[in-house]
């Protein structure tokens, strides 16, 4: 499965797709990038006159790369299509934020699989900014299964 094929199988679209490229993937890990474009609607309100990427959007980006993209790769041999016959839900995350992410910043997400069993995918996920500084780090869990 190519990196682009993983992105094509993601069940998100604009304005809620937060994955630009997948740069590395294996059965144990995944890496990907996303640039938060300054035209995103949420910057108009978060915050007024001081646009900062909302933490909840950073979590979504980490989840889309670190859990969902990895899950799609791990299920590549199975007939699982998140746009048709399967669904995904974040069930738990426990994170810490270290740095803000401003408009037009590019971030990279690295995820290491802890386990994927009984449809539950759990991973350690980290987000870095372009300076290589840790932005956010935590443990994510989600359910990925036939619907």
């Amino acid at each position, binding site marked *: 499965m190519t990196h682009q094929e993983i992105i094509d199988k993601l069940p998100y679209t604009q304005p809620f797709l937060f994955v630009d490229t997948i740069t590395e993937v294996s059965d144990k890990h995944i890496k990907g990038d996303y640039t938060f474009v300054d035209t995103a609607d949420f910057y108009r309100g978060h915050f007024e006159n001081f646009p900062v990427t909302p933490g909840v959007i950073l979590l979504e980006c980490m989840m889309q790369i670190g859990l969902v993209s990895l899950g799609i790769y791990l299920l590549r041999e199975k007939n699982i299509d998140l746009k048709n016959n399967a669904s995904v839900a974040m*069930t*738990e995350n426990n994170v810490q934020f270290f740095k803000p992410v401003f408009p037009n910043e590019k971030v990279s997400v690295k995820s290491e699989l802890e*386990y994927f*069993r*009984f*449809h*539950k995918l759990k991973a350690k996920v980290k987000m870095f900014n372009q300076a290589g500084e840790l932005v956010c780090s935590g443990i994510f869990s989600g*359910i990925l299964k036939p619907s």
Partner: protein
Amino acid sequence: MNQEIYAKLTEIIKPYLPEDVDAASIAKDSHLVNDLNINSTHLVDIVLDVEDAFDITIEDDELDNMETVAASIALIEQKSENK
């Protein structure tokens, strides 16, 4: 019922109980989700902890046999014997 397994299993379940459920409410006929209000995704964590604690492997289709404390103990006993 195997008391040793029961005691070990109770210790495994405790950390996954919601804040408002007391550990004393764990009984052998407790349904983990319906009675103890354990988040269904935490069942997976419990199963993985059980696997480690008892050195057994639970298969995908056996998750349904772990819905109650008593059923879990029966499955653990059976798996431990066939090791």
